[in-house]
């Protein structure tokens, strides 16, 4: 039966979550308005939901615990809040999001101790992938990436016999011309897809270090490939079904891209496992299901 002490503890937590909400709900409202609601894709909300899910998954194991010395936790929280104040007041969204990381790490350390931190460091670290990249930084990286994406799509479809031509970042296919815009070139989605890759590696939970490193190295190529496939599909749908179908696809392609990337990691992971088994047990006639 929950006694008065339980009640106190619960109220303390309600207050902590209210404090976090006071700091960061406005942040996410702003980021949604300025970044996520535009056509930069649903990757941000997907990652946010995943973070919340990862935390929720651990809820039963989280206990209030103060086995950790206070000093490092206080240092982290204070550093995070000192970053938050100028970032929030001057709307520097990138730093606003990043400030959550030390605040949450320090808060978990102070209240739930080492065990809490061990369970929650990964979802907290994933917050990095929610950070919107400022326009001036983005512009410097975007142009070459845009060029690569449109060049790869152009070459591939050309080899497949489609009437496609490219002038800079403008792709012409049949009667249509498509501009590979900022959002399409997908630097934002590359960042978010990298987060999804890390998430996959975390959830897959392989013990082999070589396996994990190979998976980590595959993240950027797979994210790039998912991006290429999305643009190629957009071009093909426009070619076969007209501009309005292309636009409809474009507006929802982000979900597809996340699915493609996740599928890509899954396929590559299983390919690695197959190779591993093949090299480990070449004489085995039995499917090696039991080894996992």
């Amino acid at each position, binding site marked *: 039966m929950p006694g008065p002490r339980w009640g106190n503890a619960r109220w303390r937590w309600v207050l902590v979550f209210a*404090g976090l909400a006071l700091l960061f709900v406005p942040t996410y409202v702003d980021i949604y308005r300025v970044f996520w609601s535009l056509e930069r894709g649903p990757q941000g909300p997907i990652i946010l939901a995943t973070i919340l899910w990862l935390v929720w998954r651990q809820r039963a194991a989280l206990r209030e615990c103060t086995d950790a010395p206070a000093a490092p936790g206080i240092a982290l929280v204070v550093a995070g809040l000192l970053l938050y*104040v100028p970032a929030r*007041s001057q*709307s520097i*969204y990138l730093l606003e999001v990043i400030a959550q990381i030390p605040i949450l790490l320090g808060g978990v350390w*102070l209240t739930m101790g080492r065990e809490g931190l061990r369970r929650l460091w990964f979802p907290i670290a994933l917050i990095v992938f929610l950070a919107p990249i400022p326009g001036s930084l983005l512009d410097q990286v975007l142009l070459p990436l845009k060029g690569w994406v449109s060049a790869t799509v152009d070459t591939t479809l050309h080899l497949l016999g489609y009437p496609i031509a490219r002038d*800079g970042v403008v792709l012409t296919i049949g009667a249509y011309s498509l501009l590979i815009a900022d959002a399409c070139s997908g630097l934002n989605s590359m960042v978010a897809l990298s987060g999804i890759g890390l998430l996959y590696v975390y959830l897959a939970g392989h013990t082999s270090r070589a396996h994990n490193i190979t998976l980590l190295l595959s993240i950027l190529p797979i994210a790039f490939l998912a991006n290429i496939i999305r643009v190629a599909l957009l071009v093909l749908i426009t070619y076969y079904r007209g501009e309005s179908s292309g636009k409809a696809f474009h507006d929802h392609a982000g979900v597809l891209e996340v699915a493609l990337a996740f599928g890509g990691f899954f396929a590559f992971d299983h390919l690695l496992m197959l190779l591993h088994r093949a090299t480990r047990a070449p004489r085995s006639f039995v499917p090696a299901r039991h080894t996992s």
Partner: protein
Amino acid sequence: MSASTRPLMLVLAMLLAAAAAWYFTPRAMPAHGVMPLADVVPRQFAEWRELDAPVNAIDPRGQRPGETDPEAPYDDVLMRSYVNARGDVVMLALAYGRHQRQEVKIHRPELCYTSQGYSILQQSSATLALSAQPAGAGAVQGARMLVSAPGRSEAVSYWIRIGNLYSTNAWKTRAHIFTEGMQGRVVDGMLVRVSQIVPDAGAAGPARFEVQERFLGDLVHAMPADARRLLIGGDAT
């Protein structure tokens, strides 16, 4: 600290931070209130008069053809074409935003043009010598560009004023918005852009830009004083 005080200390620290963030949020809006631009920019000045049928210029707000960024920071935009007696046609684009933020600022023309399929053939920063510039105003730091897309080339001169700064560098601009903001001041921003369609971007000599600079000088000179501050900054008197 006991188990019960740690969460409470956290809450207290977070409340303090939220209050501090609220305190440092800039609220003092810039004094300029001369609007709309269409009323303060003369239709005829010096040797220039407005063309009745304006040339179809690149919208300074546009991210992509036909799309206007819903978060674009513009409160007023003016696009006109002018012509002089010798037949030089100049497209003028003014874009004003009262509240410039770190991530929501006036778009730089080079990005505007590239995002609409133009390639930048040449770009250089330039101190624009506005011949008729009123005494006391500093030199205007701007840029010149030659851009081209299939079927159309343009010579472009522009400057961007953000607060008291001619914005030539993204990080300096951010720093200016930040330091002004921490002192409670919202900074405004104005893009002043002129462009001309040129037959061959490669062949556009310096004379091209000379016409544009003369136009800009005439324009700034012809503006009423308080409206002129919108374009080139300077203290209100």
